[in-house]
């Protein structure tokens, strides 16, 4: 294992100290229990947005805390859901009288821990709603699985709902918006290499020099298919096809196209893939009205790519364009 770390058990804490040091104007990091909240406080009467999940997906979620996106985030250990006490403390710290929306990625651990946190919130009288994001078409959505994972769509939902909360929408409205976006977004990912969890010290899975995994998650979970490496254009086709057909996206739809690096894949390759993804979307009759290109929801140093498409309407475009000021996404401010 080759990483720029000290003790494997200290990775998350030390990285959080780094974030706190780098962005004191944007973030305040609390320890024990660990959570990150915006430094400027939640405006009175604004619905607060809280997300969280295992670490190792940076910049998600801590990097999306700030004005116009998340108000707080609970980082767990690497690839390990945070715990209810973190969520509970963050929820109480964030409530500005209008309630707190929990944005949860659909993983058994995340869902159960947020569920317990919501139970604790009931006792504390903070109004909480939870939205579960499950946009990963690589997983069959059936009773035979834990259901689809929450992946790239989470980033888009956090941005869009952050804007809605900023505009004074109520907790119910923001929660509805999150669910509406979740219904309109689909993702699919692949990996060229595995990642290595620092405390495990070894790659989560082994891939031959000529192999790739299609349909991976963001925790180094193996994917749904292992196969020979293909040229990038074919890989992009493999990711786009199930996305397009699942919703399905229709001729004439407006979309936001998000091509994401899993961490180890450099930007030159992400743009190369974006080129093909947009081409396919356009061939399909879609209009790519907005896009996002880069490492936003990663899996440590894993080399690979995910593609996310969200069907847009004028409202969503307007919310997407609204000002945002976080360590990882910033415009209009």
């Amino acid at each position, binding site marked *: 294992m080759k990483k720029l770390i000290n003790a494997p058990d200290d990775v998350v804490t030390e990285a959080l100290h780094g974030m706190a040091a780098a962005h004191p104007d944007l973030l305040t990091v609390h320890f024990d*229990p660990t959570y990150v909240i915006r430094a400027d406080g939640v405006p009175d009467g604004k619905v607060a947005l809280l997300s969280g999940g295992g670490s190792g997906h940076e910049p998600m979620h801590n990097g999306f805390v700030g004005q116009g996106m998340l108000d707080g985030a609970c980082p767990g250990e690497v690839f390990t859901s945070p715990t209810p006490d973190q969520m509970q403390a963050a929820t109480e710290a964030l409530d500005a009288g209008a309630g707190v929306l929990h944005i949860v990625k659909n993983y058994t651990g995340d869902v159960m821990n947020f569920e317990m946190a919501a139970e604790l919130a009931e006792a504390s009288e903070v109004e909480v709603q939870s939205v579960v994001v499950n946009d990963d078409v690589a997983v069959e959505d059936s009773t035979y699985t834990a259901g689809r994972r929450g992946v790239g769509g989470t980033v888009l939902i956090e941005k869009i709902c952050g804007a809605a909360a900023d505009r004074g929408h109520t907790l119910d409205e923001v929660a509805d918006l999150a669910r509406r976006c979740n219904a309109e977004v689909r993702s699919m990912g692949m990996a060229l290499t595995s990642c290595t969890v620092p*405390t495990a010290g070894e790659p989560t899975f082994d891939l031959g020099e000529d192999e790739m995994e299609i349909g991976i998650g963001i925790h180094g979970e193996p994917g*749904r298919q292992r196969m020979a490496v293909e040229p990038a254009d074919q890989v992009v086709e493999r990711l786009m096809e199930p996305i397009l057909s699942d919703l399905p996206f229709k001729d004439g739809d407006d979309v936001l196209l998000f091509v994401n690096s899993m961490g180890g894949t450099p930007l030159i390759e992400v743009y190369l893939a974006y080129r093909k993804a947009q081409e396919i979307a356009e061939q399909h009759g879609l209009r790519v009205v907005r896009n996002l290109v880069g490492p936003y929801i990663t899996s440590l140093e894993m080399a690979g790519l995910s593609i996310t498409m969200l069907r847009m309407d004028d409202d969503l475009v307007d919310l997407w364009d609204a000002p945002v000021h976080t360590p990882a996404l910033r415009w209009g401010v």
Partner: protein
Amino acid sequence: MPVTAADLRAWIRAFAAQVAEERAYLTKLDSAIGDGDHGQNLNRGLSHAAEGLDNGNDDLPATMKSVAMAMISKTGGASGPLYGTFFMDAGKAVGERPSLDVAGVAELFRAGLSGVQRRGKAEPGDKTMVDALLPAVEALETAAENGEALPTALRNAKAAAEEGMKATTPLQARKGRASYLGERSKGHQDPGATSSYYLVAAAADTFGSSA
């Protein structure tokens, strides 16, 4: 001899020690069909739980609750809420009793298992910790009905849990992270069923010997 709060503490310490020892193995199992953190998760939760026992009192439910809270707040992942709920519900079930006989131990494990199932909605055969816990609970209940002594009851439970754990290998996972793999989850022993076997084994080795 019936099981006291001191025995429960010995049980948790033994479970924690076993998980610490097998941490790398549990993580390896989790790397194959999950995300490679089960050993770390449980070890983190249990070492805090074991620490919390040092200032332990002789109150059974309080002991169980302190373990539950440590598991919930320090483990994370899927196993944190599941084991946390196990101990939480187990503690509630044993109530204010000063000690437990075989039936009491069976009740404890049944309540814990019900908690796991309430929280995680897994059925037997879904390739989860339930597959190790359920046979153990059934063995304990049978032993209680048959009036077996505690060591025998727990020996049976341990054997049943081990068998249940091993029987997860050919199964296709239907819950948790391993379910994403579909068919490819077959042929690997479930990490959570493995740690649940350790939980039962630790009870057998501590309550069994103290009895």
